């Protein structure tokens, strides 16, 4: 098992290196490079630009810059915001909990509901319930999340007044109940798409499993339907589901960005969109990299959990 984990860890590190190279390339391939914002400003002279270049270390050879930048990334020195000058690391990290709150709660809710729906659809294959849920899932996946969010705000916040229209808490701070009220709409909107995806994944995984021999053995033993479905069926489905969870991470992070934008939820996604407006490179790069790192680590975690559930995995991949 340790060998497997180390192997996966090594592959993840390689991925992270690749990710940093691509990130660096993006930063420097963008028109105008990292100093675009300065070159557009007419009052900035050529000498000023040279000075800033030297200050940011941009007059050194590319690979030196890369190592300095990558090194900085790894040690937590993510540069300073172009606007305001605050260290990027603190700006981003202080936004992290809000994003985590949104993503975490949506994922949890979506898993519970989505997996349950998927199991029902699989067990009652080709019944009206199956067709209804499958079609509904398809439609949900086709809804633009931002539009759905806007509709939700219009309906539940502005018209019905049940929930606040945005933000994470009322001004002046709020208690637990207040924060909960603010969480409900964005969480439901983000979870909506996730539920659709998870019900589809679960249905398809369960369909594969329900036909397997060991399910027949379980029935032949006269076990209770609950134990057969969950203890035997879902357990076997867990491995592909866990792997899928890892693969779905980029979509989850992207979906969180969209939801935060619409609900003015003060997380990293909203920060990203705001930084876009001001072309604040360092912040943008940092969040892009954080997103990628979350995906890599998430997949690593998923692989390890999968190997814990299914001991055959580490034999195949050593």
């Amino acid at each position, binding site marked *: 098992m340790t060998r497997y984990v180390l192997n996966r860890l090594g592959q993840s590190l390689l991925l992270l290196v690749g990710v940093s190279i691509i990130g660096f390339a993006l930063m420097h391939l963008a028109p105008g490079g990292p100093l675009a914002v300065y070159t557009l400003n007419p009052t900035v002279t050529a000498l000023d630009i040279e000075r800033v270049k030297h200050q940011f270390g941009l007059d050194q050879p590319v690979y030196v810059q890369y190592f300095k930048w990558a090194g900085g990334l790894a040690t937590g020195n993510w540069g300073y915001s172009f606007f305001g000058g605050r260290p990027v690391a603190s700006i981003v990290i202080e936004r992290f909990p809000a994003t985590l709150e949104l993503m975490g709660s949506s994922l949890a809710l979506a898993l519970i509901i989505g997996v349950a729906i998927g199991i029902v659809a699989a067990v009652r294959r080709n019944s009206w319930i199956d067709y209804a849920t499958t079609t509904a899932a398809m439609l949900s996946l086709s809804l633009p999340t931002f539009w759905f969010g806007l509709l939700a705000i219009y309906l539940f916040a502005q018209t019905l007044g049940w929930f606040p229209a945005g933000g994470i808490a009322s001004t002046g701070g709020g208690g637990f109940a207040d924060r909960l009220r603010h969480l409900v709409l964005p969480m439901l909107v983000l979870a909506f798409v996730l539920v659709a995806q998870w019900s589809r994944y679960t249905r398809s995984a369960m369909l594969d499993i329900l036909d397997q021999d*060991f399910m027949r*053995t*379980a029935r032949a033993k*006269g076990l209770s339907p609950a134990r057969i479905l969950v203890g035997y069926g879902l*357990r076997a489905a867990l491995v592909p589901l866990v792997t899928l969870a890892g693969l779905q991470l980029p979509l989850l992070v992207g979906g969180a960005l969209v939801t935060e934008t619409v609900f003015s939820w003060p997380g990293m996604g909203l920060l990203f969109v705001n930084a876009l407006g001001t072309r604040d490179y360092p912040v943008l790069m940092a969040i892009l990299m954080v997103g990628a790192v979350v995906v890599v680590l998430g997949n690593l975690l998923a692989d390890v959990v999968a190997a814990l559930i299914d001991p*055959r995995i580490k034999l195949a991949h050593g």
Partner: protein
Amino acid sequence: MASLLDVRNLSVSFGRNPAVDGVSFTLAERETLGLVGESGCGKSTTALALMRLTHHARIEGEARFGERDLMRLDDGAMRRVRGSEIAMIFQDPGTALHPLIRVGEQVADVMRAQLGISAAEARARALELFRKVGIAAPEQRLRAYPHELSGGMCQRVMIAAAIACSPRLLLADEPTTALDVTVQAQILELIREVSSEAGMSVILITHDLGVVAGMTDRVAVMYAGRIVETAATDRLFAQPMHPYSRGLLGAVPKLDGGWDEELTTIPGTVQGAALQGGCRFAPRCPLAGDMCRRDPPLEEIAEGHFVACWKAR
């Protein structure tokens, strides 16, 4: 002596054509019955139907087990019968066991479900069962996963789970087909041991007559969803009356035959057997005649010896 199992006119259909068509037989206590036939003749389906494990099949007929008709039981009652009064083991032990659950647990769970005992008690009994079925180093093996065990060991685990609740009837569906030849004999011997020790009846389903020879008291030969001959094992091997049984026995190479002795084969295949009326075997039968256009009923021609053939009188 009252029979343990009395099957009458059991029919199982998926779609239009029946896979099992009017099968009747009885099974006494402590008796081992062999159910023999080619692939596709309906022998496995018969067993699955008895356990009510067929999906989306239309089942007719009755199967009296003790006092009750298995076909009329409601789902809850049937569930209580499975595993505790009638148990079944399957052909490929590698896939029949859950790959992600430790084998000890797979034996313990049926006991917890059917006997209502505690987890600790079930574990202790599972250990005993592992010993009884001849699994070496049972303490370690309890915690093993199926992929860590050989085919023979997996089948022993299956047998342990099957006898865990001391069922009165064991259905063994081709239990040795997927195993190495050397292991086959061991498993068959194990089944014989545990069944005689527990006074359990067994229905042994196989296409291999060699398996049947040493193991069974009586044999029922199936063809195209019907039983064509039933007799005590010795008698069937000595005096097969149905042309199909004769063909099957003729196809088995004999120890005292020469090296270049040709094996007799039965020409044709089972396909399309049900599509014409009359005796199903007629298209392939060397003795077929005009009267075979009418379906011969299964009739007793000698004590305990039933045949479905006009020519066998």
